[in-house]
């Protein structure tokens, strides 16, 4: 148990669909690496299955999906379902970026993506220093729950 807690927080990063916006992805990678996370960065143009395969292989705590080009609504649809099918239904799923086409009220966008099964939804100007704490908390909660389930 003590050993398990020392395992580094492992996250899978990537830009979903046919989106090739690479700048934010490179910055997320550098940031979380600097914060001590183990980062599996799949880069741009990542399919749903690639995210899931990488998460399974690395026993990741969370998948952080980015979408900047406006097709997020199409690309993200069904991701949680696919996670359940492939046996990691409880994985932490975050999504952030310019998730829909055009200027929309963020609370609507958030509601839509939460309904799709994402645990947290972020606008493009998210402050990473705040977010990292939430991620650690989410991961700790999930690990604890998993640990409790084992007992």
């Amino acid at each position, binding site marked *: 148990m003590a050993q398990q807690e020392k395992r580094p927080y492992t996250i899978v990063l990537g830009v979903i669909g046919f989106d*090739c916006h690479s700048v934010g992805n490179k910055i997320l990678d550098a940031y979380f690496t600097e914060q001590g996370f183990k980062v599996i960065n799949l880069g741009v143009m990542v399919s749903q299955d690639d995210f899931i395969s990488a998460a399974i292989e690395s026993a990741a705590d969370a998948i952080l999906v980015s979408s900047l080009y*406006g097709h997020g609504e199409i690309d993200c649809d069904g991701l949680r379902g696919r996670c359940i099918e492939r046996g990691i239904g409880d994985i932490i799923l975050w999504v952030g970026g310019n998730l829909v086409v055009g200027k929309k009220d963020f609370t609507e966008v958030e509601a839509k993506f939460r309904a799709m099964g994402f645990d947290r939804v972020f606008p493009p100007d998210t402050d990473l220093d705040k977010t990292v704490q939430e991620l650690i908390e989410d991961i700790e909660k999930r690990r604890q729950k998993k640990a409790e389930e084992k007992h």
Partner: protein
Amino acid sequence: MIDRKMSREQFETQRKEVLQSWPTGAEVDFDAAIALQRSIPKEKNFAHAMIQAEREGRTLLQPRAGVALVDEHIRLLKYLETEGEADLLPTTIDAYTRQNRYTEAAKGIEKSQAAGTSLLNGFPAVNHGVAECRRVTEAVSKPVQVRHGTPDARLLAEITLAAEFTAFEGGGISYNIPYAKNVPLRSSIQYWKYVDRLVGLYEEAGVRINREPFGPLTGTLVPPCVSHAVAILEGLLALEQGVVSLTLGYGQCGNLVQDVAAIISLRNLAQAYFSEAGFENVELTTVFHQWMGGFPEDEAKAFGVISWGSVAGRLAGATKIIVKSPHEAMGIPTKEANAQGLRTSRQIVNMLSDQGMLDSQAVQREVALILRETRAILEGAFALSSGRDPEEAAVRAFEAGIIDVPFAPSNQNQGKILPMRDNEGFVRIFKAGALPLPQDVLDFHRERLEDRAKAEGRIVSLRMVTDDIYAIGKGRLVGRPQ
């Protein structure tokens, strides 16, 4: 002069394959397309509009815009023409089409029809086909260009040029390195050789189509010498296939002196390299992209960024400016916001059009620097090829990191260089990777960065790069510590 034109036979063999790759390809009839293109009035021809503006010293304005459905797209373009007072119109292609994923694009069209709003980030021209695309070009009175980001745009070019579009953005390098993950550079250059040859065939039939390599690349602190080197190589590749009307581009860095010097040096380099390669009758024009990086969310502040782009583009004497909207931070703008960005830019460009270009000793100094840097990169690239072949030079230069684009997604790019702003906001080079810049130039860059670090009381570090990337969005040019 070595003739590197794709043979007609080779072209026709490929063409058959290309036109069969999706059902709408069958709609393409080249002879009919030529006849139609010839019937277009002069003022609707993009190449004509560009060279006229260049000769008269005017700066034209063009937005980006594209939605999923044809009628909605026509409404959008007509609005930008009337309410936005655009000189030139775009048709921005959606991201699925850019990856040749026409099945996904079809799904996007369906979902958009169902939702009553566009769920695609652009216009899926291949899916709509020739006849439907022609409805777009015929509904408006300004020249229309295809803007996209497609490594293999052969079918897209066939369909849109047959549908009376008169300009086509992109190139084998600039639409691969920033837009793809693992398309071999050699492949994309071959695809684009086809597109350029197609434009050459139109030219030979008396129809001038404008070609525009994509200047800004990743749009993120790209040093002028890097984007200029790519622009010159892509320009040569296009000219070799018979292109005549060529627009070279550059994305605003934000420091006025550097931006003006960049456009001046781009013209200068293009003239020198094209002429040296034996291309004398080029209709050379330039395009200046308003800031391509992160924007402030606040619309009033975004108007400031847009205006600053228009000021720099006009003081640099660019032939056209690609305009952003006050919704930039939120993604794709409404047509109203898009027209607002155009009108703000219009006011600036008009007020400045009577005034001369900017010239100063600082500009001259920076021009000289960019010329030396770009020449060093290009000569480094050509040294890897035989007979100064731009294709070979490009492929080997990217392999060797002699050309290296910061923050690009492609695995064809070494990604070893890192740019950073100096104390006055010039984009300088922090990590040069394998860029073959002279030592004194590298020393100069380093000195300038050390000056900044000193002013900020920190050491030159990756953190400064990240700060710079977000700086304009947060209301500043240089990403200083708070």
